[in-house]
């Protein structure tokens, strides 16, 4: 429970007041922040200026100093965990913790707060599931491009399943025979036969599969997808939950969530009749002229009704003037009394009363509640608690008896223990050695925190989940309302790709993410100069995901080689010379395939204020569709087949179809 201007404001287990506050204002936010205690992000003090008076020089110096600090920290042997997933061992009550930063798995005793076992596994572990026989675990390793099979007792690696394409969620079929793994970069789920280890097939799922969860009753596996299906400019986003029949290993249903995105965790009631998926609801078709009252994005969950014809229901957890950003994982209590939802950007966990939720669902079905998915006042009916926890809570798990909820706070290496009866944190356990955050960690925290956004609406990660992008287009206010629709950019591996912004107007990330962001995006005081530097340093450090189209040894396929020849050509198919500035490798040159300049490539739309756009870098372009500055080209091919009819974006109209295919193969390998 927290108080707003002294008025109790929650439906706690004590059946407290249902009074609605007259005003929920900045004070509410401050109260909430105060109740979080040590978990609030401390303000970063400005370091003394010692090198000159120029801002860029100051930034550069600070960044170098920060990097040096980070390197020193690493050399001191400080190894962070970064807990990304949690499992509760049903027999012992111990916690199994995946550490994405130390590439390890821990067995952690919540009673003693001690690490009992720590084993190295693949790089950047992401998700885990247990085999029905409870003797084995399966861990997806996004960095290692593999799935590790572990002995559930010793935590030793028994087998590795290579799986290129960014493996994410994982689930084992109920009969224990098959393994299902999300392949994020390729929009697939891979199916393995566990006995032989052979990959059986790939299933086409939604855009960017994220989490997999098996229904307890209907023999199906539900797959949430991070990104919208077939995103198109000027159309509402449609997010898909893909349903797979585990016996046939075939997709049997696709549940479409309109105007939803970033679906992540999913959990079922014990009877399997309801499934809860964490989602956000972006408002990207509306000009970004304000933030208040969920103008840009709202946060909530979707209710699915398996084995029923009822359409899915979307509900919010936000309040009219206070949001709980970046919903992530869902956990249901064993008695289906409530479920918990982590809000990674709000450093909080929200508790939802299932009885109240069912009541609301019935009222929606009876059409007594109009537009429930946009109703910011509705959450007061079913949200029973909003519980501050650690920094960037993502994973959570409920104890077997349902008494305790464990929350993994990814960016402060702690686990919050919540009493599910009282819905408050009873203990916070630090994993390993506590150490002060270095510049990179501080930057990462800023990236993932909504604390500095007006009404804590969103964080950087809201539009750039997993440091990527949300595949949506936005109309930002600075260049006018209704003008200059722009495609969201991928934040991975962008170091050295400046200038930034589609018009190339921002020379560096610090400029991009500093005052401009404060004024036009988050609409608050945002960050201090030092914090901007930390954030920029972190962003520059973000690495790319492994490219599934590039051979691990870097050798190009014959088609890719032909594509490279085409990319570098200086004459047309008819032998005519191509002017230098019309060659692909004139603008797209260098290690990042951008010369950092802006050009008119004939893509100015009616709504654009300029015809010159920054040359996009081409590294990891395979994952950043749709393409062009406003996202009008859903695929790479269409950049030329539809949007280069006058050879303004390179000379391409003499290409054969085979040449175009080869070029695309090459570009996807960059």
């Amino acid at each position: 429970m927290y108080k707003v201007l002294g008025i109790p404001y929650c439906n706690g287990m004590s059946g407290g007041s249902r009074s609605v506050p007259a005003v929920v204002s900045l004070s509410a936010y401050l109260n909430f922040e105060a109740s979080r205690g040590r978990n609030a992000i401390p303000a970063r003090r400005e370091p003394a200026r010692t090198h000159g008076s120029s801002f860029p020089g100051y930034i550069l110096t600070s960044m170098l100093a920060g990097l040096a600090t980070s390197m020193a920290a690493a050399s001191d042997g400080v190894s962070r965990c970064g807990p990304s997933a949690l499992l509760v061992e049903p027999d012992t009550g111990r916690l199994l913790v995946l550490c994405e930063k130390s590439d390890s798995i821990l067995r952690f005793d919540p009673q003693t707060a001690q690490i009992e076992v720590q084993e190295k596994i693949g790089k950047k572990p992401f998700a885990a599931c247990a085999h029905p026989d409870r003797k084995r675990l399966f861990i997806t390793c996004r960095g290692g491009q593999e799935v590790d099979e572990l002995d559930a007792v010793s935590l030793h690696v028994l087998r590795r399943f290579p799986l290129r394409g960014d493996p994410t969620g994982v689930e084992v079929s109920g009969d224990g025979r098959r393994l299902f793994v999300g392949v994020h970069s390729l929009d697939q789920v891979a199916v393995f036969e566990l006995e032989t280890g052979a990959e059986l097939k790939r299933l086409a799922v939604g855009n960017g599969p994220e989490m997999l969860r098996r229904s307890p009753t209907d023999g199906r596996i539900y797959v949430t997808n991070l990104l919208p299906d077939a995103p198109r400019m000027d159309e509402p986003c449609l997010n898909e939950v893909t349903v797979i029949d585990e016996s046939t290993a075939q997709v049997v249903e696709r549940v479409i969530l309109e105007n939803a995105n970033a679906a992540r965790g999913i959990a079922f009631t014990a009877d399997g009749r309801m499934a809860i998926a964490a989602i956000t609801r972006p408002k990207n078709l509306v000009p970004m002229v304000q933030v208040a009252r969920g103008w840009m994005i709202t946060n909530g969950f979707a209710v699915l009704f398996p084995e029923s014809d009822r359409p899915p229901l979307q509900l919010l957890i936000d309040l009219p003037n206070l949001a709980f950003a970046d919903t992530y994982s869902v956990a249901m209590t064993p008695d289906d009394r409530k479920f918990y939802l982590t809000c990674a950007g709000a450093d909080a966990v929200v508790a939802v009363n299932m009885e109240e939720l069912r009541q609301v669902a019935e009222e929606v079905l009876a059409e007594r509640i109009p537009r429930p998915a946009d109703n910011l006042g509705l959450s007061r009916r079913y949200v029973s608690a909003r519980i501050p926890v650690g920094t960037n809570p993502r994973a959570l798990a409920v104890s077997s008896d349902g008494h305790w909820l464990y929350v993994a706070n990814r960016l402060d290496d702690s686990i919050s223990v919540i009493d599910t009866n009282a819905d408050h944190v009873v203990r916070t356990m630090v994993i390993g050695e506590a150490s002060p955050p270095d510049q990179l960690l501080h930057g990462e925290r800023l990236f993932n925190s909504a604390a500095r956004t007006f009404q804590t609406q969103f964080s950087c990660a809201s539009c750039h989940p997993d440091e990527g992008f949300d595949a949506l287009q936005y109309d930002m206010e600075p260049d006018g309302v209704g003008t200059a629709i722009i495609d969201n950019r991928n934040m991975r591996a962008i170091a050295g790709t400046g200038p930034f912004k589609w018009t190339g107007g921002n020379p560096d990330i610090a400029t991009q993410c500093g005052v401009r962001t404060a004024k036009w995006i988050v609409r608050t005081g945002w960050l201090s100069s030092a914090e901007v530097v930390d954030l920029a340093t972190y962003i520059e450090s973000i690495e790319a995901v492994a490219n599934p189209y590039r051979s691990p040894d870097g050798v190009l396929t014959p088609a890719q080689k032909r594509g490279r020849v085409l990319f570098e050509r200086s004459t047309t198919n008819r032998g005519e010379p191509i002017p230098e500035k019309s060659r692909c490798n004139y603008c797209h040159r260098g290690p990042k395939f951008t010369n950092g300049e802006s050009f008119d490539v004939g893509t100015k739309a009616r709504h654009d204020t300029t015809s010159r756009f920054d040359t996009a870098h081409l590294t990891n372009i395979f994952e950043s569709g749709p393409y062009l500055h406003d996202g009008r080209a859903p695929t790479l091919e269409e950049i030329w087949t539809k949007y280069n009819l006058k050879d303004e974006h390179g000379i391409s109209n003499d290409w054969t179809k085979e040449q175009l295919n080869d070029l695309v193969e090459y570009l996807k390998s960059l």
Partner: protein
Amino acid sequence: MKTRKANLRACTNSPLPLGGEGWVRGKSRGGSDVSPVPQPSPFKGEGVVVHTMNVRPKRVGSSGISGMRAEAFQPEGLTDHSRGQRPRLSAPVNPDPERVVPWALRIMRPFSGSNLYKHGRACFARRLVLAGGTRPTKVRPKRVPAILLALAAGMLPAADFRAEGGEPTPESRPAYYDHWESFGVPDGLPSDKVFCIYAGEKDVWAGTDHGLARYSNGQWKTYSRKDGLAHPAVMSIAEDHDTGDMWIGTMGGLNRFSAGRFDTFTQLNSGLANDVVYGVAVWRGEVWAATAAGTSRYQLAADRWTIYNETNTPMHERWCYAAASCAGKMYLAVWGGGLLEYDVERDRWRSYVDPDHEMEVDVFRDDGLVHDVVSAVACDQADRVWVGTYFGLSSYDGRKWRNFMDHDSPLVSNFVNFVTTRGKYAWIGTDKGLNATDRENWWTYRRDPDTGKGTVIWQPAGGAAEQFAIDTIFPHNYVLGISLREKDIWLATEKGVGRGTRSQDAVKTVSPEAHP
């Protein structure tokens, strides 16, 4: 010279004798000087009398090049059910010395591309025909093993081609589709013109010129562009048996239909070679799309497209009509370009074209693909490739070809639209009806356009044909697609969908393998 020219002119201009039951071999394209005047085919369904002919008439002796002679054939095994008797076997016609492969032609073989050579070959064929129903035997001068095979074949007793156990009996005749149901626009189809059909485990899919239709629980549901279909003209349908996804070839791109979602692949937004997708096949996690500009191969797991056309295969014609896998290889039907075989593991291509290089005449029997205008390809249980062309049907077992035409077999028409298989039987959709055959035994299904009733003919190898009249039949003889599922057969026709079932009450059947 003058005499030879006159002879050449004479043989290309003179008509063929009519009458009798002699049959002629030629590719019936109609209007060609070289083509014989079409004889009334025994399988046209005219009249009461049904005449049948053996698929492969008995040979007397052998043939080859050096000093060997073309042989004469006479059809045998004519059975007239109306009279309940079988005619006597005719005596073989004395071979005419002039039917020896002319030495003039032999020495001109290096100039086979010349018009004079072509005329010479046509004349040679025609003269054999004029001699009274004779036909050239297989002459493979460069392939001695084939000659030896011909020798062996010529020495085989006629009992080779009879069904086991002698004469077929009602108890040994497989069941046939004796009850048919028709579906058209009034039943929910978007159009009566149905290009393709596929019977899956649960549902039946029909591709029409105005959309896609799905038959489920007794109802047709239609899909159009507004549902995500790439184009209303749906040319082909295939199922990915691993994933359960349907792949749909249209005139405007390729669709994947998966659990209610259409994904569209076009030549503009993907690596697909061309939007006009005539045929589609799914094999080993790959989708093969036969298009008007080559064949595309989409490797699903790797998300990789490859185009096959004349730049990287032996095909000289890009217009691909169908694709089918067989014995670890992929076969492409190329309209006007023959049949292409791709050994995927070895990355090797092989081309099969009509060795005669004649559009009008099939000079030598079973020497290879019957014609280059290939419309369909399928593979049977015995890994035999069946190839439908607009000028006959071919079957290839990896070593030998066997060709069938409407003049010398129960094939109801040379214009083959579609071929599919079940077990060892091939089902052939033509412009004049439906056949099924395992190369020895034949079924023929035809609709009487006047009465709307059907005729079914069972012609066992070496046995007497039986004809059955049935009250219901498919809606039209122009059969464009066939799909078999368990006991049912589904047809795509010019005038709707036909569904055939077997009552199987009256006749005891032989082993399941005998069921076509």
